[in-house]
């Protein structure tokens, strides 16, 4: 007994003021302060890395929303575009984009003369300030308006990637010295043209609408096809996984007997939610492309694969939402004579809806950012044709937003780094919108008991 008391297991009754802390209280308070500090450090590290990530993406990607254009008066020379002079579309179509390049060189020289800009560069080197995309837009215009041949038409043409980079600070006089794709003289000319108002920087709408472009013209590359592809896939995921997931959860939660089979299914669903997404890609390749024979690179296959991936997420969220509806609601409904189905569809499901929708939106957001399974089903492709409208368009080749990011980071031209970061920003904006929608839904409609 004496041993016990002397070892201090029972603290001696407190003597003295409550305002002066004894040793033990000081130690406890210090411990708490340390723990708080650690928590704060953890949060700070998290926030700092997020800020670092966002700054680096915004710093390299924001400039992709601006693009340099050159306004040129192009003389559509009939001697070059329609030698026979009959304005026969078939004859005009025979002139390839290579035949349009000299028109642009000539227009560039004329514009320089008009603006009083002089340069030692020859017409071809001056014409290199214009994107290689320009002859194609010219040709499209002429084929659409063959009657304008022989007239002088004003065009807003893309400036070449290196020139665009110069105004965004990516290309400098010093780097141009070493760069074989652009010379300091060309940059000086661009500077003079900018001062003369021929060269302007505008908001880059084409970044959201234009299709991908090859390595020689990064300035023309856009996200149009990728955005459509991603939208199609999300549509397929929503239409397939929401009804399937909700039906499965209602059955499992409300109707299914509790036995070994349902336990097994439950374990399997939880496991599926943790399966690495690339496995779904392999599955998709084996089943949808090789067995069923669906086309490669098509949103329908991507949508089906992502549906499989999203289903477990939706089922788990839906079951949790159904579970959180208090049994008294069901009992009351059954008590006034409703059938089980009426009780569920009239009372339980509406109350669980906010939770279900939140789960669905979070599942969709996850699917939108998913890349790995898409790599295996041929979505990493160079696609320039817009897919047709739904439903046929589901079977046309398309790209997807995250895959487009991956694709652009592999290109040789440094201008694609800016494009890839820009695409990341677009993807992040979509994700933020979806997550905010999920939070709003929960805030607005959630009921607590």
């Amino acid at each position, binding site marked *: 007994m004496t041993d016990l008391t002397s070892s201090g297991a029972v603290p001696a009754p407190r003597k003295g003021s409550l305002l002066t802390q004894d040793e033990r209280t000081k130690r406890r308070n210090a411990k708490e302060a340390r723990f708080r500090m650690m928590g704060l450090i953890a949060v700070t590290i998290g926030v700092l890395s997020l800020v670092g990530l966002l700054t680096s993406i915004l710093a390299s990607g924001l400039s992709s929303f601006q693009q340099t254009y050159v306004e040129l008066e192009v003389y559509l020379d009939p001697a070059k575009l329609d030698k026979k002079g009959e304005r026969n579309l078939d004859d005009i*179509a025979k002139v*390839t*984009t*290579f035949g349009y390049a000299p028109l642009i060189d000539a227009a560039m020289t004329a514009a320089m003369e008009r603006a009083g800009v002089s340069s030692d560069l020859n017409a071809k080197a001056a014409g290199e300030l214009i994107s290689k995309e320009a002859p*194609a837009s010219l*040709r499209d215009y002429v084929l659409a308006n063959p009657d304008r041949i022989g007239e002088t038409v004003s065009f807003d043409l893309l400036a070449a990637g290196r020139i665009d980079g110069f105004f965004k600070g990516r*290309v400098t006089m010093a*780097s*141009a010295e*070493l*760069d*074989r*794709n652009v010379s300091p003289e060309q940059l000086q000319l661009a500077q003079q043209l900018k001062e003369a108002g021929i060269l302007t920087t505008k908001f880059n709408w084409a970044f959201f609408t234009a299709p991908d*472009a*090859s*390595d*020689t*013209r990064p300035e023309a590359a856009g996200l149009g096809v990728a955005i459509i592809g991603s939208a199609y896939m999300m549509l397929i995921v929503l239409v*397939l996984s929401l009804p*399937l997931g909700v039906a*499965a959860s209602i059955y499992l939660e409300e109707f299914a007997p509790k036995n070994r*089979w349902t336990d097994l*299914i439950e374990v*399997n*669903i939880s496991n*599926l939610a943790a399966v690495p997404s690339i496995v779904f890609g392999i599955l998709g390749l084996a*089943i*949808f*492309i090789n*067995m*069923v*024979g*669906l*086309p*490669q*690179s098509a949103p*329908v296959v991507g949508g*089906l694969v992502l*549906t*499989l991936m999203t*289903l477990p997420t939706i089922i788990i969220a839906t079951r949790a939402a159904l579970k959180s509806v208090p049994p008294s609601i069901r009992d009351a409904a059954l008590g006034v004579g409703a059938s089980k189905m009426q009780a569920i569809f009239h009372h339980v499901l509406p109350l669980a809806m906010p939770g279900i929708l939140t789960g669905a939106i979070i599942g969709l957001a996850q699917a939108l950012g998913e890349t790995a399974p898409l790599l295996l089903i*041929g979505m*990493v*492709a*160079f*696609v*320039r*044709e817009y897919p047709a409208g739904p*439903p*046929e368009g*589901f*079977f*046309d*080749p398309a790209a997807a937003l995250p895959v487009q990011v991956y694709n652009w*980071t*592999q*290109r*040789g*031209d*440094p201008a694609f780094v800016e494009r890839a970061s820009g695409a990341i920003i677009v993807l992040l904006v979509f994700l933020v919108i979806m997550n905010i929608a999920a939070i709003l839904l929960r805030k607005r409609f959630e009921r607590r008991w």
Partner: protein
Amino acid sequence: MLFKSTVSALALTALAAGTAAARDNIQIAGSSTVLPYAAIVAEAFGENFDFPTPVVESGGSGAGRKKLCEGVGENTIDIANSSSRIKQSDIDLCASNGVTEIMEVRIGYDGIVFASDINGPAYAFSPADWHAALAAQVAKDGALADNTNKVWSDVRADLPGEEILAFVPGTKHGTREVFDEKVIIAGCEENGTFELHMAANGGDKKAAEKACMALRTDGVSIDIDGDYTETLARVDANKNGIGVFGLSFYQNNTDKLQVATMGGVEPSVESIASGEYPVSRPLFFYVKNAHLDVIPGMQEYIEFFVSDEIAGPDGPLAAYGLVSDPELAKTQEMVANRVPMGVLN
């Protein structure tokens, strides 16, 4: 069980939705080295013809050829891009799946260059230097010894005294084969190590070549499994590092990289075309002839690809870094007549 039935239900829905719609776009897959060239041609083809722009996938030469050989039909690809020649095993696989007629189209040559940070010292290499720097075993006093060279001046006295650090393409890349053959094995023969390996392996040439290709594992030679962009990032981070790049990639990044000469020759489109620069390889694509009359625009695409205005010395491919084939006219004739490739030699 639920999962399984869901999958089959999904598959059935998909089937019912109809796969009968005929494919009207050309599908291409394969080498990531050929991809930028194929994309340039596809883009120009889409602009100038009434056919849709072909879809070009990457994924590697071997994977592309395997896909080509999966069979005949609309859900298989039409053309495989490849940075190395087709193998007998591919041809056998093709034959067993009913793909009998394959056309081999050589589009030009690609140079492989050695480049370092623009602000570092300039290098003048020979294949023997690279073997002596990177091989696991080198000749020392007439016998094989473990490689202990630390700086380039250990390898050859007149090279800069920079630490040896090389970023070479990983073994899954087609570029690695060329690097092994034209640089490491050639260098091995040049500096006499090959004979020592021959003696050590009892005159077995294959085994000796294999021994030559074994690279150091002490962190001096680093395999890059990603793309040239990753190699560039590594060189950027390690200023004394030397990376192996494709000529076109280097030409797009001349403001960050300086190129080393090999055997006294600076790599350029001209020096590769003339054969002076030693490290180059042909690039190909392989066409499934059975699809030629099925997929609209395929014959036109192939002819357009090898036409003078595209693949010629003044065309956009050459401007991007492809070394145009001096025998292009022969290829054009072959493509026009749809001549399938014969037996591999």
